[in-house]
């Protein structure tokens, strides 16, 4: 029996062998036959090479010939002040991927469908004019033990600290039947006691600060801390809200930044794979 990815329907071979016949009969013996048959294989075969739709808003590219005046226009129209000056760059940690800058100046900035935009170094998340290469990991600041300990299995506890449920949905999707990050031994677990680290989503509200600290303290060391989504990395659109308390982030080393609003499951999975060196 072969499965066709295109149609997402299983295709039985034309010439039926004895073995195939047995498989078919076994299928017919249970009530869910048709459902299973039509379900076929749903997983994305290669999470590292998969190509997303062209419209997907991934890693941006800024034209090298952008003038100072144009830089100022872009800076002024960005809703989250993601453009930084001296030198001019776009910080993906602050970008909500609304694409307004592209629509204002389509020939100066464009968004590619490259979803591998996570890094362990916030400096690597800065896109300079003329830069058109994949976002990299900074090996110099990578903790040695992370790769050694968690390469084969990484269990994570997710803490939504005022996240809006979009990143949470995408993190759930990372483990679902399509993306199935469990194939690499990466999984979300229920208890911080069972976890090797936490994934924070949301801008971290004052009301959630204490619970976040308690959860972090409950995770046994050594442990990793991952920020998923623009809200967690910089506060995003909530950056200056007086209802936030982001002091937690200054206390601990952040091992991975996963940009996106929300982060795509492929962005998250590839980021974690880079972190554990897979």
């Amino acid at each position, binding site marked *: 029996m072969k499965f066709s990815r295109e149609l*997402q329907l299983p295709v039985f071979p034309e010439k039926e062998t004895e073995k195939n016949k047995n498989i078919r009969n076994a299928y017919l013996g249970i009530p*869910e036959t*048709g*459902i*299973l048959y*039509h*379900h076929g294989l*749903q997983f994305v075969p290669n999470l590292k090479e998969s190509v997303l*739709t062209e*419209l*997907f*808003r991934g890693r941006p590219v800024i034209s090298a010939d952008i003038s100072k005046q144009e830089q100022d226009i872009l800076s002024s*129209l960005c*809703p*989250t002040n993601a453009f930084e000056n001296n030198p001019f760059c776009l910080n993906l940690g602050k970008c*909500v*991927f*609304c*694409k307004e800058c592209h*629509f204002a100046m389509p020939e100066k900035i464009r*968004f590619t469908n490259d979803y591998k935009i996570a890094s362990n170094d916030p400096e690597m998340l800065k896109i300079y004019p003329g830069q058109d290469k994949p976002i990299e990991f900074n090996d110099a600041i990578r903790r040695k033990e992370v790769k050694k300990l968690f390469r084969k299995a990484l269990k994570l506890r997710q*803490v*939504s*600290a*005022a*996240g*809006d*449920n*979009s*990143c*949470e*949905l*995408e*993190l*759930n*999707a990372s483990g*679902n*039947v*399509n993306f199935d990050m469990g194939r690499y031994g990466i999984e*979300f677990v*229920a*208890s*911080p006691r069972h976890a090797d680290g936490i994934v924070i989503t*949301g801008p971290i*509200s*004052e*009301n*959630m600060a204490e*619970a976040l600290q308690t*959860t972090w303290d409950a995770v046994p060391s050594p442990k990793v801390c991952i920020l998923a989504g623009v809200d967690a990395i910089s506060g*995003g*659109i*909530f950056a200056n*809200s*007086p*209802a*936030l308390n982001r002091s937690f982030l200054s206390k601990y080393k952040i091992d991975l930044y996963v940009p996106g*609003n*929300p982060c*795509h499951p492929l962005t998250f999975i590839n980021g974690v794979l880079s972190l554990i060196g897979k």
Partner: protein
Amino acid sequence: MKESHIILSTNPAVFSTDDLPEIDYVQFWQELSSLMQDENNHVVAYFPLLHDDNKWNFICAVADDNKKNIRVYSHTCLREHAKLESLTPNINSIHIFEREMHENHGIEFPGNPWLKPVRWPYNRHESNSCMNNYPFFNIESKDLHQVGVGPVHAGVIEPGYFRFICSGETVHHLEIHLGYQHRGVEELFVSKSNYQQKAILSESIAGDTAVGHSLCYSQLIEQLASASVSESLSKERTIALELERIAIHIGDTAALCADIAYQLGQVVCESLRTVVINTTQFWCGNRLGKGFIRPGGTYYPITKKITDEILKNLEYVETRFKEMAAHLYSMPGTLTRFDGIGQVSKEQGIRAGLTGMAARMCGIKRDIRTSHPFQAFKNINYEPAVFNSGDVLARALLRRAEISKSIQLIRDIIDDIVSGDFSNGTDKTPDYNMSLKPDSACISMTEGWRGEIVHVAVTDNAGNICKYKITDPSLHNWTGLALAVRNQEISDFPICNKSFNLSYCGYDL
């Protein structure tokens, strides 16, 4: 005789705050009490505005499901020692608004038996009150025990705290304590300077209802600026809204299957949800529709390529979901876990002021798409699906019915677009420089997948937004969940919770 209120018959509707007749509180109390005897009426917004620094100016909007209009009342009281006799004993569903006003502004409501904190906003009136001191309801008995769960739950979900009072396995009372997600959204709507930032903010009120909330915001801004959008744009927005509904309903069905350990149902529905949200991504570049709906126009006009993709994917989803659902809801294993579990009666639903799905599963025919049509629904006679049993099964079957209705709705709209004229890129692009009508207020409502979303904006004399109020359906519906688990096994809480799937951040704002 002078009118006691104004009647708005459009959605969204703009009115001048000066036109609003002011009545005294006693008259308001009596009128509202008699008005709410009719179960078709429900309060959609009730909040105070500070006037001249010494007086509260209250605005109360009551929607009528039957007459399809909104009544707006206004009354005032002095700011110092503000004290108003509570309406909650007569109109139970108004409790949440009174609690909110009490928490935010210190207004006293004598007679309200449940004047508890709502969400601990950073600018609360009692700045000394602390989250750890939530005044939980307590029953003194050595036969009862309490179970506390949260705020961090055993899954990838948002935080909230639940306290059950149980005897043995049976839950007698559930109290839900939220507020952990408070980000100060309403205040940011006032302080953020431009409409572009506010549009992004509206998508982040509840990220799972990005389209519902941003559509509510966009039509509000358009109405306040007297800007009109093309008919084709309103159709596109309607398609986007229905796609979101289909996706989340299928995802919720997957979650329900997971909770009863039916793995096939879970993985099939998960994969189907992926197909639907990838359709949204194909259209606008984001799986959850962020960056999609904008005031004044769109960056992603619909094209033949997109309608073909939508129709193709919906065909696939519909066939497979029908097959799955037919089997799922005929299995004895499912029925014993869903049927009769977590019941809410129609009477309870009306008293709690349930909206949207939570109302329609217990026999209340309440749907903004029918009662206060917006966007393309103005030209569509949408007949909502209603179930009467009020249990987990009703909520699950309601999802199935709404999925099939929404798929049909999208097909009809696309037929309409294809037979008429595609906008073909002639749609206007978003406009963030609109000038809003000064000294006015606007009430905008949409039916998100959870239920009615209400945004109210009030402008000052320069046309800037000086007050923004958001009512997510979850504000009322959390009460429905608390009622549903009464006298149930505590082990049934997860499926009751999933069957409602309420928003924490939409409540906490």
